[in-house]
Every structure is written in structure tokens, then in C-alpha cells.
């Protein structure tokens, strides 16, 4: 082992991160080297000094509150909708394949009935289409066709809501406990968006050329940082089935979903209505992203308390099961894209810093 190699590994040796054989080699070198020896001694003695810091125990009451919050969240978890269950989808796919195969068999065994069986097969395929919508586009980033959100007309601006109380102690847990629910919730769910863009930007600048972002490091619940927010979107391929109703403030509200606030924006795709809606809760303004099917309860894809929405370094929970493919900030606009729909919902949040958040949304589809 060369001196340079050993010097690079002194820190690892001091923190016992080396394989035994390598550690022995580095230690042997340090024992003989006039430079590495004192360096290693300095590292280990500084570590010894640092060990003097006492443990800091958080209060016990905090633990009990959190356990209770976890218990309530479990109780309040919505049943996943049948169309969102992977098992259901698999079963549906298998059933559709079987039906198509059956139709083909009929076609082959019934001379002169070719035209009829073609239509039957097509009908079966069409019937299965909503549940079998391919997810091949799931790897694609946000649609390039989604325009940036322009200034919304005054009619769409939600009146500022009272800021959520942040006083302590005791700090109320209840408003932030409930996860997304299928019905209009008086209590907002906990928001995944946390740190602001201001928090992310310097780090992103520092590491801009230095490797993986937090988003890459956290595959299941990625961190959307400034790097990712600025990533160039790619074109979304596939037939444009969606019909957008941008900045919709009409009375078209979903069954049992109608809060007192107007619907903000929606588009339809593959038999579903994708909608951004605002609710008022005790703790403030809540933005709800949901998808509905005619005659069905709305399935909440995600929801956030408006005063916790800030651009930039938002921590995002995305779920294929709930059909939310991606959520990203760009130029102050929060854009939602979906696994099974070509189209997006884009919402801008303002006034958070002043304690009077307002949300404006619009839908877009090719």
C-alpha cells in the first residue's frame, strides 16, 4: 500500500469502516509513517473528545402522541379502490386475455362468423381497456405539452385561508394525522412537502456537478430538489385521449366530493375524471388531487395543506397504486402527472410565506 493510498483511508480506519485486512494494512503503514501516524492519532483523539457529548432524550409525551397518530392513521386508511389494486389489475388482465382467446377460438371454430367474432373481441377489448391501460409511459417524466401555469383570472383565486396554528406547546397532532381519504376531509392529511426551495438551492448548487441527488437516493419517496425540478421534460407519447377543462369553476363536481369551495380544474382520461380541488379545513386551505369515475366515490390521489406547499425542495410521496406518477415543482408551479392518463394538473401556491396561502389550478392535456 502506498503512502497516498493509506492517507486516503485514514478516516475510514478511524471510523472502522475498512475490511480487517485493509485496516491492518493501513494501521501498519500509519505505525511506520511520520505523516500518517500523527494524522491518525489526531483523528482518533478528536473522536474521543467528541464522544463527551451527552445523549439528548426527547420527551416521552411526544412518543405517545406519535403512536396515537400512527394508530389513527391506520384506522383512517381508505380501502384501496378495486381498480387501483395490482392484484385486481393482474386478474383483469388475465381475464381479458382469456376472453380475447375465447373470442379468437370462437372465430376459428365458427365458419362464416368472422365479422361477428371480430366485433365481439373488439367489444371485449374496449370493455377491458380502462382497467388495462398500459403503464408503459410511467417512466416518462412530466408531459412536455403541459404549459406553464399562467396568471389565473381573479375568479379562480381562492380566498386566503387562515394559517394553520403552529403554536406550541402542546402541539396539536390531530389535523396532520389523517391520510388522504375518499371523502372531503375536514382534517387535512399530513403533507409530504416540507423543505423550501431556499433550502435546496445552495446544496443543489454545491453538488450540481457532484453526483446523485436526493431524489435518486430515495427511490420510494423521492426528494424533488432543484435539480430535478429543473429537469427538462420529455415528450409524452401515445394517443391523446384526455379532454381538458382548464380552470374549471363550473358546477361539475363529483359525487359526494363537493365541498363548499368550487372545483378548480379537471380533465378526463380513460373513463376517469382527474381533478384538483380545494377544501377548507380547520387548519387552513387544503389542496386535493383526486380521480373519480362516474357514479363512484372520488379516490383521493393526494392532498396537501396549502400552507405546507412551497416550491423547490418538496418531499413527494408518489404512488403507482394511486396513479400519481410524478409531482414536481417548476417555476412556482406544482404539476401532477399520472400513470394512466395523458394530461396533468398544475397548481400554483402563493402567499404561503405571508400566512395567507392561495391556490390556483389548471388542467391540461394534449
Amino acid at each position: 500500500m502506498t503512502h497516498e493510498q493509506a492517507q486516503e483511508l485514514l478516516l475510514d480506519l478511524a471510523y472502522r469502516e475498512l475490511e480487517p485486512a485493509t485496516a491492518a494494512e493501513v494501521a501498519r503503514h500509519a505505525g511506520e509513517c511520520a505523516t500518517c501516524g500523527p494524522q491518525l492519532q489526531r483523528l482518533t483523539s478528536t473522536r474521543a473528545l467528541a464522544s463527551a457529548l451527552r445523549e439528548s432524550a426527547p420527551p416521552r409525551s411526544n412518543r405517545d402522541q406519535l403512536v396515537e397518530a400512527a394508530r389513527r392513521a391506520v384506522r383512517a386508511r381508505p380501502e384501496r379502490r378495486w381498480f387501483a389494486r395490482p392484484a385486481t389489475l393482474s386478474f383483469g388482465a388475465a381475464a381479458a386475455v382469456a376472453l380475447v382467446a375465447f373470442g379468437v377460438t370462437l372465430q376459428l371454430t365458427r365458419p362464416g362468423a368472422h365479422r361477428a367474432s371480430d366485433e365481439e373481441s373488439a367489444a371485449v377489448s374496449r370493455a377491458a381497456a380502462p382497467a388495462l391501460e398500459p403503464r408503459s409511459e410511467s417512466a416518462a417524466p412530466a408531459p412536455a405539452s403541459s404549459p406553464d401555469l399562467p396568471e389565473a383570472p381573479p375568479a379562480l383565486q381562492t380566498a386566503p385561508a387562515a394559517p394553520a396554528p403552529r403554536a406550541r406547546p402542546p402541539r396539536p397532532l390531530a389535523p396532520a394525522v389523517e391520510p388522504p381519504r375518499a371523502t372531503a376531509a375536514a382534517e387535512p392529511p399530513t403533507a409530504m412537502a416540507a423543505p423550501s426551495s431556499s433550502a435546496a438551492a445552495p446544496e443543489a448548487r454545491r453538488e450540481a456537478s457532484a453526483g446523485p441527488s436526493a431524489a435518486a437516493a430515495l427511490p420510494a419517496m423521492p426528494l424533488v430538489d432543484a435539480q430535478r425540478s429543473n429537469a427538462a421534460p420529455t415528450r409524452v407519447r401515445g394517443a391523446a385521449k384526455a379532454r381538458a377543462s382548464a380552470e374549471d369553476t363550473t358546477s361539475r363536481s363529483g359525487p359526494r366530493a363537493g365541498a363548499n369551495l368550487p372545483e378548480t380544474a379537471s380533465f378526463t382520461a380513460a373513463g376517469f375524471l382527474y381533478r384538483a380541488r380545494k377544501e377548507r379545513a380547520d387548519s387552513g386551505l387544503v389542496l386535493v388531487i383526486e380521480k373519480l369515475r362516474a357514479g363512484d366515490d372520488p379516490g383521493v390521489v393526494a392532498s396537501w395543506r396549502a400552507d405546507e406547499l412551497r416550491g423547490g425542495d418538496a418531499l413527494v410521496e408518489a404512488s403507482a397504486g394511486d396513479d400519481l406518477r410524478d409531482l414536481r415543482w417548476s417555476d412556482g408551479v406544482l404539476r401532477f402527472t399520472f400513470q394512466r392518463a395523458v394530461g396533468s394538473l398544475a397548481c400554483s401556491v402563493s402567499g404561503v410565506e405571508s400566512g395567507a396561502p392561495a391556490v390556483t389550478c389548471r388542467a391540461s392535456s394534449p
Partner: protein
Amino acid sequence: MVDDTDEALVTRYQRGDVAAFEALLDRHRQGVFRFLRRFVGDAARADDLAQDCWMRFIGAAPRWKASGSFKTWLYAVARNLATDAARRTAHRDHEPLERTAGRDGKEPAAGAPEGDVLLRAALERAIAALPEDQREVFLLREYEGLSFAEVAEVTAALLPTVKSRMRYALEALRRALDAAGEVPEAGAHRATDRSARP
């Protein structure tokens, strides 16, 4: 339950097992709080942030996929919350650390050697004075037991960058403690026991 991995516990909690959540909480609550307290330098604020951190996990748990490390995810959330909080309150005047030292939820034990109390106060000051990127690396590696690779994951930095920050942090701490008269002379040793690692 004790032997379950974090990821197994998360899966159990996803299925509704609140005891699994409690096990996760007991396993990491103190570490997360300790990291936050030393990062933001204020026990009350750290308490708030730790609560936020766990609430975010509760909210995200149904969608968790066990393809990554729960621990690094948790500390990444904590770190981002702390970074954000630190920036939001950067303009505020902080209480001098001389007054906050020893007030981290536990008073110094009666009979604790005076030298130890002084060293802890000096350490608190020195850590608080570290640049943020060095401070987070030092805290995560030194006190929370994350490997350098895990620290790199949490902080979204390259491994060599993390190690470089750690070296700078250790050097800065050493200099600060030396200036405070807390570094023993070569060959000598303080009366207090430094062999116990947290």
C-alpha cells in the same frame, strides 16, 4: 420484533401493525431528535422538527416501497426539515450557546465532572460554529452511526465530498476545542472517561 429490520417493520406497519411503528419509533426517535437538536441548536425546535419528521413518515407509510434504506430516508427527511428551518430562522438571533449548553432535555447529571461539563459546552459551541454542510456530515457519522456511504445518500453528496467535509469538520472541532483549552496535552489525558462511545 427486536430483530426485525427497519424495512420489515415498515412493511408490518403498512399492514396496520402499530406495534411495528412503535418499534421503529423506539429505534430511531432518539437518534433523529439528537441529530436535529445538534443541527439546529435548540431543543424545542428539534422537538418540533422530529415530530414533523415522524408525521411525514406516518403520512407516507402506505406508499413506502422497501427498495431503499428506511434509516437513510428518515434522516434525509430530518436533514431537509432542519435545513429548511435553519434558513427560515437564519435572521433570528440565537440564544448564546453558553446558555443552552446542558439544556438539551437533560441537565448534567449531579456529580458530573466539571471538566466534562466544560468540554460538552465547548463541543456544542464548536459544532454549532461548523458550516452547515460539515455539521450535518459530522453529526450523522459521529453520533448517529451512519456510514460515510449512508451520509452521502442522506446529504445527496458524493462519497469523497462527504469524507472531505468530515476531515474539515474534525479539524475545525479540534482547533476550537484546542482554543478553549479542552484538548489535553500530548501524552496526558483528561480525568474524565472518554472511552464510552455514545
